[in-house]
Structures are given as C-alpha cells and as structure tokens.
C-alpha cells in the first residue's frame, strides 16, 4: 500500500462546465498537472458546502475521464447523481467556482498485458469510469463490450463519444424505458458459457457487483469490480469504509475500500458478510 496515493494531491480547481445529463450532472473541472497520474478506477474526494460548511467530510466521486490536452490544460470529468446534501451542493456549483479536491485516490482497474475479451458492466452512474477504461483497453488491443443498466432511462449515462470506444453497447432498464427490459446480469450466463468474456470490469451498486460475482464464481472469468462503501476520509486513515475480503487461508480481513480499493477482485469479497458482524478473523 505504501505506493498507493503517492501521487495524490490537494488542489483547488475551477469548474469549467456543469451540464445536466438525464438525472446526473456532468461536471468538468480544471485540475492541472494531477491528471497525469489519474487512471480509470481512481476517485476524487471533494470538499462540499462552502467555507463555513457543517458538512465536514469530503465526498467521493469516480473520475469519469481526464484529458491533458485542450485549452485549459489538465481537466477531469465527473458524473454526479444528486443524492444527499453534499452531492446536491456540487450539482448546483456554477461555472467558474472553485472546488477543493484531493486526487487521484485509490486503486485503478488492472489492465491486462495481453489483448483479452473484456466486458464492462456499469449500473447507473457506475458507467462513468468505464468509458475511459474502454479507451485504454482498446489501445491495448482488447475487444471491449459494454452493458449498462439502470432502473430507468434517465439514469443511464452513455455519452455518444463514449460509444465510439466500445465494440458493442447494450442497455437494460428495469422499466424498459430504453434498451431491453431487464437487468445487466440477464445476458451474463450465456455470454460466459459462449466463451465471449475473459475479464469483467464492473462499477455500480453493491447488489449488482455481488450478483456478477455470483455468476462468475465457478468460471474462469476474472471480475474486477469498483466497490462503493461510505467513506469518511478517502485516504485510509479512518477505517470506516471496510469490506470483508477472504484471504488465501479462508479467513476474513476487513480491507479499506478507499485504499485497498475501490477496485477489488470480486471473487475475494465475502459479499454475504457485508454489513454483518464478521466476528473474529
């Protein structure tokens, strides 16, 4: 872990644009140099509520995309769902206002050294970091298929540019308002048995990640998932964000999802113990 967050820095950045996209806000921030160290899967921790805020903890958001070209130098894009007070505050920040952020944080998605068949699965705003990942995988010669899902069309985040970096894109909504009616996990068993998938990269609600882990559990498919636990610090010092992970000897360790994650090996997470009393190790 001592190399984790080695490049993370606290910077004051400027909002370059803030657009509503379905039920989300797409926020572009001018962060400068640090984009060089941001990898797909990393996240950013943002101070919310202004100078006299009663909200004392930072909020975590996946880095959706970065760019170090363009007229502003390094920029970072976030896809934010207005959930509670902090994320809503962020969504109302206007172009030109400053944001205090720490980035990049956490583990990135692991990139295969060989070209593989990669399946990227995103739930809700979980698709955000997957398009940047798709570009990297494509550049390594991988085949990249993507499945996105949400309860309804307004919660699907799938930008047009993003679609260019994948070989195929399938969308599922629970209410059928766009794409197929159903869940992202519906097509998985057959895709896997057809041998169409070597690695799954997933990001989305914990229930979805658990379901994917269930389906991949007795297969050869590797499952890298970006988890989401409540985080107080985001930098590994508070121990609030832990997840039960099975060690090689079968015993349980409680690992910090901010620093030993958010990207974790789905098959090692003891999903059935999340939020339960894990007892002695």
């Amino acid at each position, binding site marked *: *872990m*001592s190399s*984790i*967050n*080695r490049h*993370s820095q*606290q910077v004051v950045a400027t909002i370059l644009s803030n657009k509503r996209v379905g039920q989300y806000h797409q926020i572009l921030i001018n962060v400068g140099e640090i984009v060089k160290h941001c990898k797909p899967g990393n996240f950013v921790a943002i*101070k919310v509520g202004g100078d006299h805020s*009663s*909200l*004392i*903890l*930072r909020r975590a958001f996946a880095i959706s995309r970065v760019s170090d070209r363009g007229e502003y130098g390094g920029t970072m894009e976030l896809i934010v769902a207005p959930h509670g007070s902090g994320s809503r505050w962020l969504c109302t920040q206007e172009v030109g206002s400053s944001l205090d952020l*720490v980035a990049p944080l956490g583990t990135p998605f692991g990139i295969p050294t060989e070209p593989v068949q990669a399946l990227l699965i995103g739930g809700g705003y979980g698709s955000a970091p997957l398009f940047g990942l798709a570009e990297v995988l494509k550049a390594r010669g991988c085949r990249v298929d993507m499945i996105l899902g949400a309860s309804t069309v307004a919660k699907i985040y799938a930008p047009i540019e993003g679609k260019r970096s994948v070989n195929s894109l399938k969308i599922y909504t629970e209410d059928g308002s766009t794409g197929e009616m159903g869940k992202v996990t519906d097509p998985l068993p057959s895709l896997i048995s057809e041998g169409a998938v070597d690695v799954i990269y997933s990001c989305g609600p914990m229930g979805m990640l658990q379901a994917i882990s269930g389906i991949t559990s007795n297969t050869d498919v590797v499952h890298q998932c970006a988890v989401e*636990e*409540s*985080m*107080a*610090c*985001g*930098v*590994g*010092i*508070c*121990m*609030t*964000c*832990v*997840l*039960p992970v099975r060690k090689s000897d079968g015993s*349980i*360790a*409680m690992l910090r999802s901010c*620093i030993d994650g958010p990207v974790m090996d789905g098959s090692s997470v003891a999903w059935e113990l*999340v*939020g*339960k*009393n*894990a*007892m*002695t*190790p």
Partner: protein
Amino acid sequence: MRESSFDFSTTLGSAWFPAPVFTASGCASSGRELSQFFPLDEIGAVVTKSVMLKERLGRPTPRMAETPSGMLNSIGLQGPGIDAFLAKDVPWLVENKARVIVSIAGETVDEYGVLARRLRSVPGISAVEVNISCPNVDNRGLVFACDPESAKAVVESVRRTLAGDLPIIVKLSPDVTNIASIARVVVDAGADALALINTLLGMVINTDTMFPHLGGKTGGLSGPAIRPVAVRAIFQVHEALPKVPILGMGGVRTGRDAFEMILAGASGVSVGTASFGNPTALIDVQNELKQLLISKGFNSVQEAVGFAHRPSKANP
C-alpha cells in the same frame, strides 16, 4: 518574539516533543497513509490507533454517519493485534523518524497489563496512551472510563508493569457526571498525563430505513461539534489538577482551536476528525498555532498552557 527563539516544544510526563501537535488515536491509522501528504517527523508525534491483544475485525458497516459539524464512528477497534502491530507498524514509524505514542485498549484489566508489558522493551516509543473508553468485558460491558473503580484498576495494572519506563497518558471519556473526579482517580493510580476527550456517545437514525444508521447502533461523536465540551473538560481538569499535563483533543480544525485548548490547560493537542476533511490538517494547525502564540507574545508553548485560568481584572 522572534520565531527563531520561540520554544515550540512540549512535554507529557517525561516525554519531550519538538512540537505540540499530535495525531489522534484512530484518526491516522498507523501513520503511513498520512505520510503521503507530509513528513511525519514534522509533527509532535503519531498517536497510533488503539491496539488490542488479538486481531479484531471490528463492527459491521456502515461505520460512520456525518452529523452537523461532526461525525459518528463505530469502528469497534479493528486492528491487527499487538504482535503484528509491533512487528510491522512501530518499526516503520521509527524508521521514518516519527515520534510514537502507542495507544492500547483491553477488554479486561489484565489485558491492559499484558499489553503494557509487550511495550516495555520496544525501542522508539515515547509514551503509552491508555484508552479506557472501551467496554469492560468482565464487568457487564461497562466502559472503564465511566467507572472510577475500573479506571483505577486499569491504570494501576499498567503502572505496575511499566514502573517508570514510559510515561502513561490515560484517555478519558466525556460521558461522565464529573470528569475531574475521574481524572483525580487515575492520576492517583499512576497516570503521568491525561488525554481529553474521547468521543461522546451518539446515535443517528436513518429516516429511510427507520433503523439506527450505524452497524453498531451507537457511535462516537467527534469533530468541531464537540469542541466546546472538550474545552470545558480540559478547563475543569486543569483547574482541579493544574500540575498534570493534558493532551487536548475534540474538534480541533485550526490553529485557533489548538490555541484555545492550550489556553484552557492542554500541553499538547491532537487532531483527529479534521484530517478526514483535510489530509494536511496537522501541518496547517501546527503552523497557525505557532504564528498565533508568537503574535500573542508568548516565548514558549509552556507559557500559554492554562493561561485562561489567570485572574481577570473584571472578575478577580
């Protein structure tokens, strides 16, 4: 006062520190993580997360809830156990030139003694912080710090084992009717210094699920919200026991807050929750505190300790 001749050092019992700003136990893990943001040898000392005898997985998630200007946590003392801790974490800190205060927590009086014994011959430790704010397994789960008899027994057991090898800092809970009387008991039992305050017991109910939000139901309240309670506790204890050094904490976020605690009677100040919102909070607090002390004309930290207790002209 010129900066160059200003004495920023402090002592807690026989332990000397070049600066009076410390991490708070449980708010800096084992130190490594913060070292990505600043060199650990710049601050007074790293107070490590309370370590227990055995490895412990702690409480189920969610382990935190944000509250107005504060937060609740229910970590449940997750940790690797004393052996792994001494093998891995302490040597790393020593290598990185950090001064180290080891915080220990036991489930029984004997466990505290055993933990203290393990520390006796470990090189590089400046002091032991005895966290007695955890439930006493032998005694109906009562928190040691809330019961004078248990508190006394723990401190005596540690004192017997350490016999002057390392200064003993005893950390008290604010959830008591009379903190000064508990302070007196633990000092009589052998504490060299006191750490004030641990978190306040609190609860948040999730109004969606309509159940207590935390996996552990109740949690410890920390952050700026509790600072007035911490300052009051420090002031009361310093008034009752002016010679006993106090490590103050509870909601310190700026140099002004640290200065407030020193005026109330603290010889050093720990920064906990503030680091969660600002990973360089310790350095910021330390720099601001130094400037404040100098601008107020103090020649040393020591001169300012308990300064708010001096007689005033208005209310002599």
